[in-house]
């Protein structure tokens, strides 16, 4: 099947809206969609919802002979799977251009940033080492697959436990999961990607683009960052897109503060999952199956359906902070310094920044009203574009 054709009308509307500092789904330019992370009963299973984009990752391990060039290291293999489930133009078993791009970027972000300590996966030098395999399944494609895939892969790697091994002379004994407590992977840092769609020759950029925005945009800027604000990956794609140096720095600033928040959120979700497991009677993904009755019976829930994803998961506690990312962003922007040179842009943003609305006001807006249009409260986020144009 071919991809649904894009009409001139949709494209123009998206571009025009972005130029005016708003987006067709009602977000502001630097606002991410609501992110949900859930884990399965098996170790190393993580499902990520980024708005309506849905990705699941599963980590598995086998004992293999290490590569002769890296005899004292285990291996990490990343595999992205796209099937017709995600979109009608995807074909099972064949990745296509988009799939290869996602696969490569996830590899660059996670494997090439060396966030997994591969040396700890070696059992016997030159003989036996663990091969960690990450299977990433794209379940629904509503844009920004790269960010969702890296988050899912990272979540799954953090959640994964491998069977413990002991050495008896040169004989390797693998202990079953119920025999001995399994061992988590050694994770050195938590890298994530954040994508921006570039419009108007790189003058305007929108964080976490939807499928429609991705297709209407001139190009895309993908930044891989970890919680220490260190850059791991950077890619600009698109046909002949020019982007100014300041714009890249400014994007990196926004992305860095979001990466810190997202890693925090991931850790919270992992902790919540661990707590659930200890309680016993753990049913994993079953709890993320929501019944329709919860979704469509009352208007407030219909509102929630459009403003936030359906699943109200264990991480209810941090929902409040997540549903108002833009305020956080403004607050953080003052203190973000990725590089000393970027001081210019961040100090500029300080000037244009409006005071935060009181927390109670923000909360009220999110929960009680159907937030249809963009209001003046969202002005502060437009500053990113203002400073450039």
């Amino acid at each position, binding site marked *: 099947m071919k991809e*649904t*054709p*894009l*009409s*001139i*009308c*949709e*494209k*123009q*509307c998206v571009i*025009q*809206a972005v130029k*005016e500092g*708003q*987006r*067709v*789904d*009602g977000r502001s330019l630097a606002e991410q969609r609501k992110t949900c992370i859930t884990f399965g009963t098996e170790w190393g299973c993580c499902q990520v919802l980024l708005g309506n984009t849905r990705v699941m990752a599963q980590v598995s391990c086998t004992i293999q002979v290490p590569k002769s060039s890296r005899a004292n290291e285990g291996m990490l293999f990343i595999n992205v799977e796209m099937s017709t489930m995600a979109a009608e133009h995807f074909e099972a078993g064949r990745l296509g251009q988009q799939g290869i791009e996602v696969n490569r970027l996830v590899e660059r972000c996670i494997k090439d940033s060396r966030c997994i300590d591969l040396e700890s996966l070696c059992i016997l030098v030159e003989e036996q080492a663990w091969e960690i395999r990450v299977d990433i399944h794209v379940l629904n494609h509503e844009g920004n697959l790269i960010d969702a895939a890296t988050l899912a892969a990272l979540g799954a790697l953090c959640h994964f436990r491998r069977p413990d091994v002991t050495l008896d002379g040169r004989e390797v004994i693998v202990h079953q999961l119920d025999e001995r407590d399994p061992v988590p992977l050694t994770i050195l840092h938590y890298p994530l990607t954040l994508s921006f769609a570039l419009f108007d020759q790189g003058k305007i950029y929108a964080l976490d683009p939807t499928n429609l925005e991705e297709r209407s945009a001139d190009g895309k800027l993908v930044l891989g960052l970890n919680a220490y604000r260190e850059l791991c990956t950077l890619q600009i794609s698109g046909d002949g897109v020019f982007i100014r140096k300041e714009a890249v720095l400014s994007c990196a600033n926004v992305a860095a503060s979001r990466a810190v928040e997202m890693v925090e959120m991931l850790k919270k979700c992992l902790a919540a999952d661990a707590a659930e497991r200890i309680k016993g009677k753990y049913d994993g993904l079953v709890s993320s199956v929501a019944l329709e009755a919860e*979704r*469509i019976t009352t*208007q407030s829930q*219909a*509102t929630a*359906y*459009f403003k936030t994803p359906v699943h109200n998961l264990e991480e209810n506690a941090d929902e409040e902070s997540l549903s108002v990312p833009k305020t956080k962003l403004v607050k953080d922007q003052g203190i973000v310094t990725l590089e000393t040179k970027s001081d210019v842009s961040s100090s500029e943003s300080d000037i244009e920044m409006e005071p935060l609305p009181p927390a109670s006001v923000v909360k009220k807006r999110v929960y009680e*009203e*159907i937030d*249809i*249009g*963009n209001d003046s409260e969202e002005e502060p986020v437009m500053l990113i574009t203002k400073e450039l144009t």
Partner: protein
Amino acid sequence: MAEKSFSTHVNQIYLPGDSVVLSKTDENSNAKIVLGPGLRKYGKQILVTKPGILRTKSSPPTYWIDCHHRRYVPARGDDVIGVVTNKVGESYKVYIGSSEEASLSSIAFPGATKKNKPNIQIGDLVFAKLLIASADMEPELVCVNSLGENVGLGVLSTNGFLFTVPLHHIRKLLNPECTLLKSLGKALPFEIAVGMNGKIWIKAKSVKQTITLARAISMSEHMNKEEMNQLCKKFIDRQAGF
């Protein structure tokens, strides 16, 4: 399997494979009974093929199943919105969301002749009527009525916004009893074209207003009448606050 009769079980949920029995009055009368979508005759039985609610209307007695769909299956006489994807000879290929692309002749426009053809680019939106829609044939679109007159069909302006909603939502919006579009129009004037294939084209004064309206319409999918009224009220209040 409990067999249910039409008269007592109209507005009830049916699942594929359930059988329905005609009411005594319908069974005894000689009048023709029309079975609409989701029902089929199998021997002497009437079987349900789609999950949904049994609906009825009188004169002639018609029964059908009100079902949820997302994929459009062309039906003759439907007004649809399509994206022009290609030009083949004298006709255009139009994507309308169905399994096969529809064809639209370049002379099927009001006032068009062999020499005077409409100016259509690839990627344009057209609002057209389905002239031929059969399971075995390529669907064909026209933008005129049988007399070649203008009936409000044709190319849509590129200034609006196009979005897709499930087909049952379209049916709900076009129901004469649904006041959503009218009450939204009271708050904000807008132009709208609603295609039976789930596509809605909307245009208001500014992009901001267009987006707001589009979101309000797609948001009302899971709402009943009361909730829609509430939504409109909130929407109007909000517009007044501008």
